[in-house]
């Protein structure tokens, strides 16, 4: 019999399996719709591989626990939705400041507040960038298919380990709950935490190395005793208020991302080469947008799509390039225009939006209608 390695999976399940494939061995979470399937599946699978699953008392404790586990050397993850994501913001900033790798999955539901637990939304785009206080780095990935829920979760762990920073996988409720038949990739690049190259006495966990090399984070208990804090710190990790050291600390966490945009940013271009109209869409909405592009092409309208797979850092330079060629941008999204504003900033062209916040998916027809409006 022919061996089949394709399986019917839900987005949430694919995310959980991707995390296991990436080597995640510690999950802490708190139940919340529509992300709970991730926790349920991992509670079964993690003990099988000797990993830890724990249901914490709230989302604050969940993210705290995964940061602790990561400091002890485990690849770690938590998953939640809007209200829980709000609770995680303080410690998300801690992970960014203390440069501790971890992955946070946010399966977006309708907001604000308790909102619509069982309905999808894309309302947390800005929160995923600016939710925690102070200037901080952010890497946010947006899967557009069940397969991508798997592969981008792996990628999230890779980026997190490589850049010593928290990475957010921003799914929407539709992505989390839809099922697709996927072929699980047999070989994916897995980045593990590098080992230190210096003896303990020379180890400076927060050193700013010219050229941007990132100091490996040595797990607790391996003879490298150092201090980790959310306070602004010097190269050794100790609190400081010396302006030069403060500048160095904050600049470093921002520029390790800014100087590596070429490595971090992923986009998908669809029929953009000769396009007059560019649709910018992400997550489940990009699926409707792709269909709308096909419909437009059938009617002879030159439409194309840019899908930011990396939502933050925002692919601003790619948009600038495209903006030189196309006449109009159409931005459909399940919020009142959070990415629309970013597109507006990136290019001096006409930008229109198609928004929906009622929990229903934006249909290809709705996007098509807007395309026709702008072509006339």
């Amino acid at each position: 019999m022919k061996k089949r390695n394709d399986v019917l999976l839900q987005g949430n399940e694919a995310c959980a399996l991707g995390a296991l494939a990436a080597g995640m061995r510690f999950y802490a979470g708190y139940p919340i719709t529509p992300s709970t399937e991730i926790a349920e599946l991992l509670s079964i699978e993690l003990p099988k591989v000797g990993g830890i699953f724990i249901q914490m008392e709230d989302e604050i404790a969940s993210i705290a626990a995964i940061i602790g586990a990561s400091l002890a050397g485990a690849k770690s993850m938590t998953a939640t939705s809007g209200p829980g994501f709000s609770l995680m913001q303080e410690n998300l900033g801690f992970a960014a400041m203390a440069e501790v790798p971890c992955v946070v999955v946010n399966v977006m539901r309708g907001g604000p507040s308790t909102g619509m637990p069982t309905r999808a939304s894309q309302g947390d785009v800005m929160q995923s960038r600016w939710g925690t206080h102070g200037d901080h780095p952010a890497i946010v990935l947006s899967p557009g298919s069940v397969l991508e829920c798997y592969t981008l979760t792996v990628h999230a762990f890779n980026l997190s380990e490589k850049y010593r920073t928290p990475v957010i996988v921003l799914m929407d409720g539709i992505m989390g709950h839809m099922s697709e038949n996927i072929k699980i990739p047999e070989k994916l690049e897995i980045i593990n935490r590098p080992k230190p190259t210096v003896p303990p006495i020379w180890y400076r966990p927060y050193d700013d190395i010219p050229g941007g090399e990132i100091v490996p984070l040595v797990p607790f208990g391996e003879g490298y005793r150092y201090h980790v804090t959310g306070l602004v710190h010097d190269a050794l990790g100790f609190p400081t208020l010396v302006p030069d050291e403060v500048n160095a600390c904050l600049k470093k966490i921002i520029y390790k991302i800014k100087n590596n945009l070429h490595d971090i940013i992923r986009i998908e271009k669809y029929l953009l080469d000769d396009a007059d109209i560019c649709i910018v869409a992400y997550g489940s909405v990009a699926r409707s947008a792709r269909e709308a592009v096909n419909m437009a092409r059938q009617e002879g309208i030159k439409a194309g799509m840019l899908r930011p797979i990396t939502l933050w850092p925002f692919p601003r330079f790619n948009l600038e390039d495209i903006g030189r060629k196309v006449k109009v941008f159409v931005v459909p999204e399940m919020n009142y225009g959070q990415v629309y504003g970013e597109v507006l900033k990136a290019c001096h062209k006409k930008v229109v939006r198609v928004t929906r916040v009622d929990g229903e998916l934006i249909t290809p027809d709705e996007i098509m209608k807007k395309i026709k409006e702008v072509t006339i």
Partner: protein
Amino acid sequence: MMRTSETVYKYLRPNKKFPHVWCPGCGIGIVMGALVRAIDKKGLSKDDIVLVSGIGCSGRMSTYLDFNTLHTTHGRALAFAAGIKLARPELTVIVVMGDGDATAIGGNHLIHACRRNIDITALIINNNIYGMTGGQYSPTTPMDKKASTAQYGNIEKPFDICKLVEACGASFVARGTTYRANMLDPLIEKAISRRGFSVVEAMAQCPVQYGRRNIQGGPVDMLQWYRDHAVPVAAFKEIPPGEAGERFPIGVMVDLDEPGYIDRYKEIIKKAGGEV
């Protein structure tokens, strides 16, 4: 017993610029001394100890001691520590918190750490006030006492931390004071030795933010107050109901030595067919 100067050089961080942030007369340093002596007596390697702290005056202890140290967000120290302990059970994880840190903002994490009986030692330094932010009342400020946010006297009933953690399932509970510093050493040592979740409440004077406002005199007067009001557990039980006044028990309140969370989780891994 090791000479004090040797202990200082062995356990305090040589590369950290002292002086520390604690005020003259503060009790936290006395508790830190007891913790260091307890660890030294147990003969643990510095590499195998993780010291996690929260925010506030007590939270700064992690900066000064030469272990693997983590200074977390306010109230969340126990949740961070849970992650460390579960991911690397062979490490000894000690959490230092203040009264506000542990029982107000971190109250939820405290009760659940007790309930899970997670294998961590919690050292709660109780000075009955928020010291670092300027003397606001905490969940352990006694009734009628004054604070910068209770200028007419505190009208909230205080927590008894030992009773609280006992009720929530901690398997080792003890209380000491900075007046009897030598009694704190063995209490902390015992707490570290026990399986499951251990709590030591160390009563420590805050002369600047608490004593001064409540006319308790200077640090010496506050220590003398501990001397006069702290009663060993056995003797405290002899006091007729309602006659204890401001007196409180010290010593070991609970010592169950039960299997903790880690042991139970290992069973789960076996059930799932994984390798421990």
